[in-house]
């Protein structure tokens, strides 16, 4: 699957939050989107899904996004919004099963195939044991993993996750990054908006750096996540180096 955007801009009122971005994303890659708060990361991915009006061109496999019916987009791109609110106290199993909605008819029940997909998603996100629990009564970390399972249950060729690591402990942060990595290795296109530069640098094939709505850099982490780029974008002085064979990025202090 290929998602291509050309001169993509998003305006909220008079403010330009995404400014003329050109990019192309292909399957089999884990793409990180980083940038300061308010850089336009979430607006960019929401525009990719057609959730907010945008200028410019968005194409999925060569077809304009606006020409693809909503239900088809839903089967091809799974989305985990930032700070997902849950409005009803459903069980974990019931919530994860919502991911199968794009595959069901108006009244049709879950088939055995759907149940298997739900079970796979729950196993992958390590939430199988939580199945009977009520989502509104989970800890922050459990909840985050359940929401990822919900997105995985769609089994779409593209997965867009907006800050999936928020409120996760280090072990579960690693687990989620490994999970996203595995999805990409299986051929999926995974786009992850995130703040942890170190994990983005280690796990992503490619990183986009956004600032003030504009694309500042786009490439492999080693080329993009440099001390110079981090200073320009975040205004921080960072140490970038290697330890135990792993690339590390440690923010040291603010530079201005």
């Amino acid at each position, binding site marked *: 699957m290929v998602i291509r955007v050309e001169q993509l801009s998003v305006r909220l009122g008079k403010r330009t939050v995404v400014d003329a971005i050109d990019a192309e994303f292909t399957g089999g890659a884990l793409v990180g989107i980083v940038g300061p708060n308010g850089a336009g990361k979430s607006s960019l991915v929401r525009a990719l899904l057609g959730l907010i009006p945008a200028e410019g061109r968005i194409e999925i496999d060569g077809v304009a996004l606006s020409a693809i019916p909503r239900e088809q987009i*839903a089967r091809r791109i799974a989305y985990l919004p930032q700070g*997902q609110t849950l409005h009803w106290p459903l069980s974990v199993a019931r919530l994860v099963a919502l991911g199968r909605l794009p595959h069901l008819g108006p009244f049709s029940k879950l088939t055995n195939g759907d149940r298997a997909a739900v079970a796979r998603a729950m196993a992958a996100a390590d939430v199988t044991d939580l199945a009977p629990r009520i989502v509104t009564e989970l800890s922050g970390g459990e909840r985050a993993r359940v929401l990822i399972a919900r997105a995985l249950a769609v089994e779409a060729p593209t997965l867009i996750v907006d800050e999936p690591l928020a409120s996760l402990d280090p072990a579960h942060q690693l687990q989620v990054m490994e999970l996203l990595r595995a999805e990409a290795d299986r051929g999926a296109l995974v786009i992850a908006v995130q703040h942890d530069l170190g994990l983005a640098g280690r796990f992503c094939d490619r990183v986009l750096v956004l600032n003030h709505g504009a694309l500042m850099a786009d490439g492999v982490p080693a080329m993009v996540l440099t001390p110079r780029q981090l200073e320009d974008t975040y205004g921080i002085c960072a140490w970038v180096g290697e330890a135990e064979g792993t690339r590390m990025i440690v923010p040291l202090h603010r530079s201005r």
Partner: protein
Amino acid sequence: MTNGRNRAALLMLLGIVAALGFMLSLAIGSAPLGIARVAGALTGANDPIARAIVLDLRMPRAILGLAVGAMLGLAGAAMQGYLRNPLAEPSTLGATNGAALGAVIALYFGLAELHPAMLPLLAILGAMVALALLFVLAGAAESALTLILAGIAISTLAGAAISLALNLSANPFAAMEIMSWLLGSLEDRSFRHVILALPCIAIGLVLLSWNGRALDALTLGEDGAKALGINLGRTRLRLLAGVAIGVGGAVAVSGAIGFVGLIVPHLVRPLTDRSPSAILLPSALGGAALLTLADVLVRVMPTSTELKLGVVTAFLGVPVFLVHLMRERRLW
């Protein structure tokens, strides 16, 4: 699946209670008829008095009890799911008060005396106008808060206009008639009322029960639902049209019966998996059961004048709220 079996059991139980309410509604009334005479009237025995009482007086009332109750229960469940607010009810978006205002206009200007269908028709029209106004006020936004704010504005406006009519009514009888209509009742309804209300209620029931998928998806918020392929614009149109037509038709014949749409979803929710789609059908059956039973209750209560149905449902609503309050405070 145990889940499927639980659901079937719940639906069957609610269906049996509703059927029981229907039969009691036929059997109980001010004229003491034995079960044998009621059964005889239903099976065509030659007993003209019993037939007149059971078929012409009690039957329309029992049918309306089921239909109006089902409509209010389903509308409440659909509204709570759509607005993602457990305090939403059919009247939240102004349809009930709009219908009531239409009826009050019919009574105030004496239009109701011109033709018996005048009052219900104006009530349905009132509900439609209220919902059309809601679309204008809320704009294209799909946010629940915008809709609730617009609904409260319309509801309050219609309520104020009703008060104005009561205030200015020169004729005390018209004022009395308006008051007693506003309390809500199924007393003295005929098959004419059934014929007027049933088509509207049927359309409303179909339009509202169509939305299970969309309501479930809305558990994840508007973005989440859209990303799951839900067309929120169409969902909103179906829901609001369903409430306007269905609740408008129900209020047109029964008057403003409150609380059924609010409490029934709360009563059935703990018996389901709590997803918005799972409470739709049980709420319709539960509403039908609750309203027919409440309508039997007003007939057996030893009061000097018959209690109004809306009064009884309002009293029934209080304990439900208290239970909720206690659960929130973790006292239960």
